[in-house]
């Protein structure tokens, strides 16, 4: 019991945070890549769709990088993993745009992330360890329920319909969720941010703030539909998914159940078409 067995220094201070310069450097690099991609798309030079993919990949790569820096407090050796993960994500996005099967490259990202994280023990503190099968199953069930609910509500309320525009496109979208969309959200928000806040306080403030930040990220995403009902739906469902993922993270000690819940939810979401 550490309260009795570990030496205690009442005046000891926490080590200083990593300098903001590091975050600014990383954020600046990825922002420039996003800007370059958007400019390429806007200019319409060559295959302008690749510009869109470049920007999309850079956004998720930036989120992963930010998560890495927060989780490790920018400990020495962050450049290598951040570069490798970012490059893989951007290449996956470009590959997915060039060919539907190219999206399979997204599936490499979770594995690469786990491999990189194994070399950095501090990453385990954000919940990268395995989960109990019951917890993982609970995440899948909850995500599936919310996804099914979305399908029923959207079809009855807004007149949306179930539409899987070809299996390759559907699978490509799922691969994107696996390797970029859901992964970056769980890694950064439920992993780095929620762990950081929860460790310093209680569950509800940490969960609400984390969910609010993740909603802001979705609402600012230029690649999502801008219709009012779509934004309201995103706030409602992604808010629920976010809160539930925080609860699953706190309950299980792992990011996996929340990640599975998000994947199940997005699997249903991808079936929806206006």
């Amino acid at each position, binding site marked *: *019991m*550490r*309260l*009795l*067995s*570990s*030496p*205690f*220094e*009442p*005046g*000891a*201070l*926490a*080590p200083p945070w990593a300098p903001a310069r590091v975050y600014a450097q990383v954020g600046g690099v990825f922002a420039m890549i996003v800007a370059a991609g958007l400019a390429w798309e806007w200019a319409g030079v060559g295959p302008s769709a690749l510009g869109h993919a470049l920007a999309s990949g850079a956004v998720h790569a930036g989120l992963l990088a930010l998560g890495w820096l927060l989780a490790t407090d920018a400990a020495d050796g962050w450049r290598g993993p951040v570069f490798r993960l970012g490059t893989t994500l951007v290449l996956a996005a470009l590959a997915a745009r060039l060919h539907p099967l190219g999206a399979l490259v997204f599936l490499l990202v979770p594995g690469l992330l786990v491999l990189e994280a194994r070399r950095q*023990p*501090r990453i*385990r*503190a*954000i*919940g*990268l*360890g395995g989960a109990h099968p019951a917890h993982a199953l609970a995440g899948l069930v909850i995500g599936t*329920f*919310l996804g099914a*609910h979305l399908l*029923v*509500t959207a079809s*009855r*309320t*807004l007149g949306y319909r179930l539409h899987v525009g070809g299996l390759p496109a559907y699978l490509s979208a799922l691969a994107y969720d696996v390797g970029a969309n859901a992964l970056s959200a769980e890694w950064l928000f439920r992993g780095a941010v929620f*762990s950081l806040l*929860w*460790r*310093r*306080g*209680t*569950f509800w403030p940490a969960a609400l703030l984390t969910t609010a930040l993740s909603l802001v990220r979705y609402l600012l995403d230029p690649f999502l539909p801008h219709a009012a009902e779509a934004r309201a739906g995103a706030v409602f469902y992604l808010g629920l998914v976010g809160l539930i993922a925080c609860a699953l993270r*706190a309950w299980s*000690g*792992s990011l996996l159940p929340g990640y599975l819940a998000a994947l199940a939810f997005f699997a249903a979401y991808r079936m929806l078409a206006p």
Partner: protein
Amino acid sequence: MIALSVALLGAVALAMGLADQGPASVLRHLYLLPTLWAALTRGATGGGLVGALAGLLHAPVALPAVERDGLTSQTLDGLLSLGLPIVAGLLVGRLVDGSRARAARLAAVLAIQRRLEGPDALDDKLGAVARELYAALRARRLALLVGVNVRTAILASVPVGTLVDPDSAAAFALATGQRVSTTDLAADPRVRADEPIGSTPVRALALPLVSGAGVVGVMAVEWRGELSRAAHAAAEELAVHIGLAVENARLILRQHHFADELAEKVSAATARLRELDQAKTEFLSVVSHELRTPLTALQGFSELLLRSALTPERAQRCLVYLHTEACTLGRIVGELLDLSRIEAGRPLELKPELVDLAALIERNIEIFAAEHHEHHFRWTASGPDVMLRADPDALDRMLKNLLSNAVKYSPRGGQVCVSACPAEDQPGMIELAVEDDGVGIPADQLRRIFDKYVRVPHPETAAARGLGLGLSLVKALAEAHGGRVEVDSLPGKGSRFRLLLPEADPDF
């Protein structure tokens, strides 16, 4: 219970679907039943979860109506029905949680008080209290450290087997009376540990246990994961109760200890009184006997002198006997008078003057050697003549008593050694020692031999005469002179009495 509530929700949703009466259907109120049931059985978590599920099930009915008809009273009612189960589930569940927590706290306090009231040792009771607290607070680890010093404090922990570092957070709380609180023990820079940070924070509290006497201990608790405000408050409240209960337990134990000590002392005093009573009875019997013996002799010889015409030689011998017995009677009466003076608390009347100790000893040895032919007397003096300022009669009686005891309690042919010299270990004191090789005194009797009426029984010396007053008089007379008497004895080897008296002032 949750499964039953979820099943009921499904049944209500199915019934609403089949009835197809829209969001205003009266059946929507039925969502509250499983929600409240879950809240009552599972608290805020159950109530909130089932309430949220009820809202989600009602959404596909309520939201299309809003889309179709806009915001009317009916659609608003439908929207309210969406949120009502969640709110009701959370509120009722929170009330249930609060009342359960209060009940649990009260039960824990009662259980702890009962544990501490028991007759067991404090260590055992603290172990039971730690287990009660561990269960009541749903802690991951819990320890109670009771005492004012961390090195000597009693430790009870769950699980057992915790090491205590004198520089730990608990020791800090014990020493300063300040609480230590941390939201994550592993990440707290104040706690030095080499263990990696886990994925779930470990909340920890070290709360001083305070009573009227100050800090009496520390309660250290660790939780894994979320620590609710209610649990935090419960820990603080229980720490207050434990501080007072521990102090009460210590007072009760002290009271028991005091009562036991008192009973022991009363019992010892009673036994001593009985001993004294018996000794006094024996004393009276011995006194009667001791007085009668010389009186009988006096009567017999005086009658012989009165009735018979004795030759001058025989008459002279009778007069010598009469004188000897009269002296014995006088000595006994003198001792009795001294005894009554001591018992009345009056000081012994002393007439101090310079006494030549060597001469006194030589005279007494001559007398005793003449009376006891079987014993060998030896007298050694070291250094120049030792002079004392003392009452010569009192000194004579002290020496006679010591010599008389030496003769009485040593076998025929035994040796009695007398010595006088300045006491080496007591500057300014003269030591007069009488040593014999007699039966000796058992160690457990040594402290009693200077008491009045006490005679140490021994089969070899049962026939020895005496009142049991000699040594008590020696002690009283020595103390009246500003000195004291000491004894060393080994059963079967003999005894050595050491009379220590103040040296005479050379300028006197």
